[in-house]
């Protein structure tokens, strides 16, 4: 049961590209945050794949740190979404133009 590392890298590549597409084309800021989560997960797959490739657990440790950072990011991001919704009654990125000149 050895999965080639290349196949894991291809999976991670596909997920990153889907995530970037989601960040670029979607209008709802919550879905943009979800896409960022997807990108972080794709990076995590790479960490674990190379951890297995070199038989070294450091990659998995960094995977745990990655998940922690993702949790912190999503907590602050969603708090910003709620604060913004309270002020502007919108969750669309093209209507968030308060600091745009």
């Amino acid at each position, binding site marked *: *049961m*050895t*999965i*080639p*590392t*290349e196949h*894991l*890298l291809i*999976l991670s*590549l*596909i*997920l*990153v*590209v*889907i995530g*970037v*597409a*989601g960040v670029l*084309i*979607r*209008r*709802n800021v*919550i*879905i943009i*945050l*979800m*896409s960022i*989560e*997807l990108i972080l*997960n794709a990076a*995590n797959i790479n960490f*674990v*794949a190379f951890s*297995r*490739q*070199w*038989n070294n*657990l450091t990659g*998995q*440790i960094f*995977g*745990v*740190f990655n*998940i*922690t*950072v993702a*949790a*912190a*990011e*999503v*907590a*602050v991001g*969603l*708090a910003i*979404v*709620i*604060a913004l919704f*309270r002020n502007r009654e919108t*969750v*669309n990125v093209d209507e968030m133009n308060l600091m745009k000149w």
Partner: protein
Amino acid sequence: MSLGLLTFYFFAALAVVGAVMMVTRKNAVHSAVYLVLTFVAIAAIYVQLGADFLFAVQVLVYAGGIMVLFLFVIMLVNLEEPRRYSGGRLHLGLSVALTLILFGMLATVFVKDAPVSSVAVTPMAEGNLQMVGWLLYRNYMLPFEVVSLLLLVAMIGAIVLGRPRA
């Protein structure tokens, strides 16, 4: 083709399908549910790679905690939107073009430099959980503490930002 490889392809396809559906669904709740599918599929791949601890963390923190947070916020701020994509046709075309360029760049690097070809994996004598715990509390003590501080800061930040105006 071995059963393990077949299982990997199944879960990889599941992850990709979930991701595509997440980006394209109109309803944000549907997107969140498809993202849960992707996260669970990735967790299954972690099991296949022998990363038991990351599997548990992925299911508990991502599929459990983070997605509940997402669903909660969606319920709080949900608005029915006629348009799901931002900008006009130019924006959409430019975004797709940029994404394809990124894909091409990454794929080029991959094709040029990546024949890493798998080495034979020797399973570790101790369990994965034990080894990860050992490394985390011995070699990576300081990063562990710093990351816990980051979580504290994020928690305080979320409370301050989410608090109603006095």
